[in-house]
């Protein structure tokens, strides 16, 4: 199988490799083969290999994907693969990108939980059927892989836009009854670089490997911001 892999930093080129085609082969298997057998100087990032850690995302044939759970058979076009680093993030080397901006934006979106209970207090009792809890549950399984961020054209056009993952995180906390940062967080995520910047193109949910819907979370934030503005709380 012919595989083209991006080599270099911001400036670089695709280098072609010949990799044996195996049954049940993932894209990460291919990259690992190249690094171990053909060119040990290839840089890439992975950890768990089972779709939990969110560190192996790359651009595969033009689309952002988690590579450890992407089978070659599903994505190879004409039996070939083109593997590039994730888009919208600065390339460090080859397939490794700098994720700092991505995670800094989680902090900027008020992504840290802050409660008012101590370890001496009893557990908060929240019913599983609670509407807010269900909203939070719908977005809580994010693994922070950056696929949605790489696939978002609003991020591409406006580099300061917080992005789908950070806003999805904010939405799960807006719906967390134990959290105390509600009004503060809404102020952080309202505005052009927050939820109001989203054009609902839905590439985030199209590509999310966990099948989450950041667009739904951002729509929820837009409603929360609208209600807060109408009530004069923003």
């Amino acid at each position, binding site marked *: 199988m012919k595989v083209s892999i991006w080599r270099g930093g911001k400036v670089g080129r695709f280098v072609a490799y010949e990799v044996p085609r195996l049954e049940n082969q993932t894209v990460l298997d291919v990259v690992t083969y190249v690094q171990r057998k053909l060119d040990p100087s290839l840089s890439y990032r992975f950890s768990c290999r089972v779709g939990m850690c969110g560190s192996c995302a790359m651009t595969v*044939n*033009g*689309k*952002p994907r988690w590579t450890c759970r992407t089978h070659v058979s599903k994505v190879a*076009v004409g039996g070939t693969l*083109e593997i590039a680093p994730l*888009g919208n993030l600065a390339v460090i080397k080859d397939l490794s990108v700098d994720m700092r901006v991505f995670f800094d934006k989680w902090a900027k979106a008020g992504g840290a939980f802050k409660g008012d209970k101590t370890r001496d207090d009893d557990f908060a009792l929240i019913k599983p059927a609670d509407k807010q809890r269900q909203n939070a549950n719908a977005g809580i399984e994010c693994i922070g892989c950056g696929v949605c961020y*790489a*696939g978002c*054209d609003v991020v591409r056009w406006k580099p300061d836009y917080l992005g789908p993952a950070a806003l999805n995180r904010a939405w799960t906390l807006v719906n967390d009854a134990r959290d105390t940062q509600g009004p503060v967080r809404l102020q952080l995520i309202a505005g052009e670089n927050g939820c109001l910047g989203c*054009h*609902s*193109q*839905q*590439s985030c949910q*199209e*590509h999310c490997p966990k099948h989450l*819907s950041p*667009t*739904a979370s951002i*729509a*929820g934030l*837009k*409603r929360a911001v*609208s209600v807060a503005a109408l009530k004069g709380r923003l």
Partner: protein
Amino acid sequence: MTSHRSHPSYWAFVLHRVSGLVLAVFLPFHFSLLVQATEYAVGFDGFLKWSEQPMVKLAETGLIVLLALHLTGGVRLLALEFLAWRDWQKTLVAVCGGLSLAIGLLFLVNAV
């Protein structure tokens, strides 16, 4: 090579944006025709006759489709952002597209 943009919701975004831009370009002509219709009735008769040509009717159908796309696309976005979330967003995109084409067809059938 595929792209992260190749999915129906993104096409809907592009259609909404393009139809909005084209309609914005068309609006000044629309207003100038309105002025002609009210102020210069004789000259406007000539325009009405010109507009009976098949190619002009076809272009008008195109405008109607663009208008319908922009209207249905706008309602879809408002529903997406202000009503409860629905997981069948692609179905909504298809409904908006189908509705717009149907409206264009209806206009064309009546124009012929």
